[in-house]
């Protein structure tokens, strides 16, 4: 009875803190759009708004010499706003990202490769008509596409042209692969397949590392949960698998109470298992295991609250997945990754057990399930 009350208190108080943080973040984040666009002006230049997406640009002598188009694209962690300066013939002169919620190491990859400069010299109408001269940067494809999308939407909205707002859902091999991995994880839990459990686990780990990790680069991360919580959905017409992973992971916990994702689907969990098999890793049992877990979950909660208050999910990104599968991350993340790899050779799943933020989220959903069941059992 006492445990049930504690469960309910934890679920309610964490939920309350998260909602307060989300509301605070939304209030703080409301910025004047004109101020953002004005920040890219040179001294002496002035703006005149035509509509929300198009502004006329005046030089020091008061003569109109171009336009600024601004629009939003669907990024990885949320919408990003982009502005582009063009001359009077709609040829792009410069592009700037006004606001974004992308993981810094990913967007910095675009800046390092001068991605924004690749649009210079292209006519807006050609871009809107499907110009393919600007390729996405490998390893930051979604962010690259979001910038291009923002430019096109900014131009079409600014000129009052018809936009393609068709809602379409498309599925391909990434979605099939995600479904297959969760299907295997479900089979592992079935008693009938207990003899094949070991083989199913290894099949799942291998597939997960190769496809979910290296090919798609889509392990479940804390920013993914936060973006979904704030109501931002990835494009179902090409990124449905990004949505499928958290939905199935949480769905399995809420239905069965079992954390199938962490056990057999997570590509970094699988990596640790493979490393553990190489080094014959053993279980590390700390004296104060429970205390360490509370610290781990506390850090996760703190990261969630900070990300919500700052209205930027990428703030909560401290996992090593990007560093391992896509070689992007800060120096600190790479050090954490190296330590995790070395420790994984000797101890089973050190990252999952003591650092992973997703573990905290899964633990919360498990506690929520317990609390709800106890209410209905009364």
């Amino acid at each position, binding site marked *: 009875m006492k445990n049930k009350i504690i469960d309910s208190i934890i679920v309610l108080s964490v939920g309350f803190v998260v909602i307060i943080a989300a509301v605070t973040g939304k209030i703080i984040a409301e910025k004047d759009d004109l101020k953002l666009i004005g920040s890219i002006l040179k001294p002496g230049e002035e703006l005149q708004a035509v509509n929300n997406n198009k502004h006329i640009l005046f030089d020091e002598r008061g003569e109109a010499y171009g336009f600024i188009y601004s629009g939003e694209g669907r990024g990885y962690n949320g919408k990003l706003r982009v502005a582009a300066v063009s001359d009077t013939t709609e040829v792009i002169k410069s592009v700037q990202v006004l606001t974004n919620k992308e993981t810094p190491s990913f967007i910095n990859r675009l800046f390092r490769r001068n991605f924004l400069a690749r649009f210079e010299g292209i006519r807006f109408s050609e871009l809107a008509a499907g110009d393919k001269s600007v390729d996405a940067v490998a390893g930051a494809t979604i962010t690259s596409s979001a910038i291009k999308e923002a430019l096109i939407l900014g131009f079409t909205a600014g000129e009052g042209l018809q936009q393609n707002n068709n809602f379409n859902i498309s599925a391909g091999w990434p979605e099939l692969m995600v479904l297959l991995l969760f299907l295997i994880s479900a089979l592992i839990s079935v008693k009938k397949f207990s003899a094949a459990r070991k083989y199913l686990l290894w099949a799942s780990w291998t597939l997960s590392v190769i496809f979910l990790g290296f090919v798609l680069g889509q392990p479940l991360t804390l920013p993914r949960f936060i973006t979904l919580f704030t109501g931002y959905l990835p494009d179902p017409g090409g990124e449905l698998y990004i949505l499928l992973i958290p939905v199935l992971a949480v769905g399995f916990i809420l239905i069965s109470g079992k954390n199938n994702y962490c056990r057999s689907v997570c590509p970094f969990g699988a990596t640790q298992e493979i*490393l553990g098999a*190489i*080094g*014959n890793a053993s279980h590390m049992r700390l004296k104060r295991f429970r205390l360490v877990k509370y610290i781990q979950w506390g850090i996760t909660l703190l990261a969630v609250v900070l990300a919500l208050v700052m209205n930027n999910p990428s703030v909560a990104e401290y996992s090593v997945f990007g560093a391992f599968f896509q*070689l992007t991350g800060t*120096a600190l993340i*790479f050090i954490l*990754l*190296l330590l995790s*790899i*070395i420790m994984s*050779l000797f101890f089973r799943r050190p990252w999952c057990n003591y650092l992973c933020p997703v573990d905290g989220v899964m633990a919360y959903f498990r506690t929520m399930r317990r609390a709800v069941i106890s209410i209905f059992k009364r």
Partner: protein
Amino acid sequence: MFSNSNILGPLFWIIMGVLYMVFITGLVVWLKDLNIKMNWWKWSLVLLWFILLSIIIAGGFTLIGENEMRAGLLFIAVPGAVMIVAGVALSRFLFRNRHEKQNN
């Protein structure tokens, strides 16, 4: 490497040579002490691993010295991690016979 000194460069390589010899002779004694029988291909594997590790460290620090910090760190971190994993796998492989003997 030491552009302002004539003595530090040769001294560095002498110390490196000594450390390499200490490592290799130490390894031979250590393996004998542990009763691990080595043959030519086992030695080849150990030396290959050691040479690759040396190349990774030397290559990484050369890149850092050429002001390519990011490339240097990645060069050390990525293949370095692979070499650590390979080293653990190799040691487990070499020590396997020893465990079997102890069990018998």
